[in-house]
């Protein structure tokens, strides 16, 4: 009788331990996998630590900036000559751009449209941290809720789209890159195919070939390598006309029903120092 009681007690303890362990693992998985909003307590800790980190990082930043400056000094004259040529071209584009903007505004007034899918305001930020977990593909920037950053804002660099904001604190934000393999948001994209656009969905990233996969393309469409991929602006997050990359390959899907495109971004995701956040005006 006593032994049986002891055995029952042991079994209960084992079952309780298993349940507690499963609950803890479930909690961790839920926290890591979903994009949850940080609590006030977490935000305060993160902000304080990153502020200290920023202050301590200034000397290193100063030294690396000086080294970069010295490196660039050697090739300054060559770059100056190139830039002079580019300034001439840029002035032409600037005038064209101004003219097109004016025309667009006039047309908007005529049609009584306030904002289009491509309208957005920009906010520049500096990268202060890169992913320390190696596989999570996130970066932390020095702009937060205080500067008007909100969850879901798209982030771009000169070469194109890099990701979107997944969490914010008062003075910092975290961006998940589009190279993350666990991207849950599909992006509506358009591919410039000659004079017309072909629409598709940017669905995943292949880490082996380092290419993005675009699905939902009809087999009748013939798309050439090098075609430019931009966002369509459909959906709540990404404005229209943001460059994402160029097509590098076309193949059929597993059921042989539609085409799957491989796209390579021109962004060097390993070396991002400055980003621009886009706020949609819609």
């Amino acid at each position, binding site marked *: 009788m006593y032994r049986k009681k002891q055995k029952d007690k042991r079994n209960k303890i084992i079952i309780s331990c298993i349940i507690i362990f499963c609950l803890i693992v479930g909690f961790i*998985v839920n926290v*890591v996998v979903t994009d949850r909003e940080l609590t006030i307590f977490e935000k305060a800790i993160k902000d304080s630590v990153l502020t200290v*980190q920023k202050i301590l990082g200034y000397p290193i930043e100063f030294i690396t900036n000086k080294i970069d400056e010295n490196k660039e000094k050697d090739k300054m004259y060559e770059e100056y000559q190139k830039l002079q040529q580019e300034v001439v071209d840029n002035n032409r584009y600037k005038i064209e751009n101004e003219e097109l903007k004016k025309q667009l505004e006039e047309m908007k007034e005529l049609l009584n449209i306030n904002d289009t899918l491509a309208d957005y305001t920009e906010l520049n930020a500096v990268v*202060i*941290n890169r992913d*320390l977990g*190696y*596989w999570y593909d996130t970066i932390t920037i020095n702009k937060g809720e205080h500067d008007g950053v909100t969850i879901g804002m798209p982030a771009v660099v000169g070469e194109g789209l890099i990701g979107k904001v997944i969490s914010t604190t008062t003075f910092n934000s975290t961006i998940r890159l589009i190279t993350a*393999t666990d991207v849950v948001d599909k992006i509506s994209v358009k591919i410039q195919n000659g004079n017309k656009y072909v629409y598709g969905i940017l669905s995943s990233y292949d880490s082996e070939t380092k290419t993005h996969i675009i699905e939902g393309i009809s087999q009748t469409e013939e798309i050439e390598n090098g075609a430019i991929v931009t966002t369509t602006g459909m959906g709540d997050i990404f404005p229209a006309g943001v460059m994402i990359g160029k097509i590098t390959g076309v193949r059929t899907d597993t059921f042989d029903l539609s085409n799957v495109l491989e796209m390579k971004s021109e962004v060097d995701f390993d070396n991002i120092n400055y980003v621009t956040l886009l706020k949609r005006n819609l």
Partner: protein
Amino acid sequence: MIVFISILSFLLDGILSRYILPTTLFLPLFTIVSLVIIYPYFNNNNLKYFRYVAIIGLLYDITYLNTLFFNFFIFVMIGFIIGLFNYLLSNNLYTSTIITVIAIILYRVINYLFVVIFKNQPFDFMNLLESIYSSLLLNIIYCIIIYITTELYSKKHKILRSK
């Protein structure tokens, strides 16, 4: 001294992540190295050590990864392994370096398994191997530097540490 080593390593992890590209062979995991270095200064008070390691893990979660209790558990697990090795082996520069290597491998493997199981990433052994060997070199150098510095400091100021 324990707090100083921990804070320094913790902040250096964040600062250097901005300057060291993920494609290089010098990825910092100084916080893990600091767990190995500080263990002898707890003088076999394992409970105190685990509590300390758990707090660092939680801070690491919140500050760098936006997670909760994930690194907390991994750090405690690594802390347990560090304690076990320190119990089996005498503490010196060589054993500290070996324990650092084991701790880094363990950290990367647990992290990767988690990503593969719960984040739908295909298992790629080469990717895992790459993440491990690219994290070893810089951290071993850091371990050697910080070990020698702390030993000299503790000898000078007669700070007790378990052997």
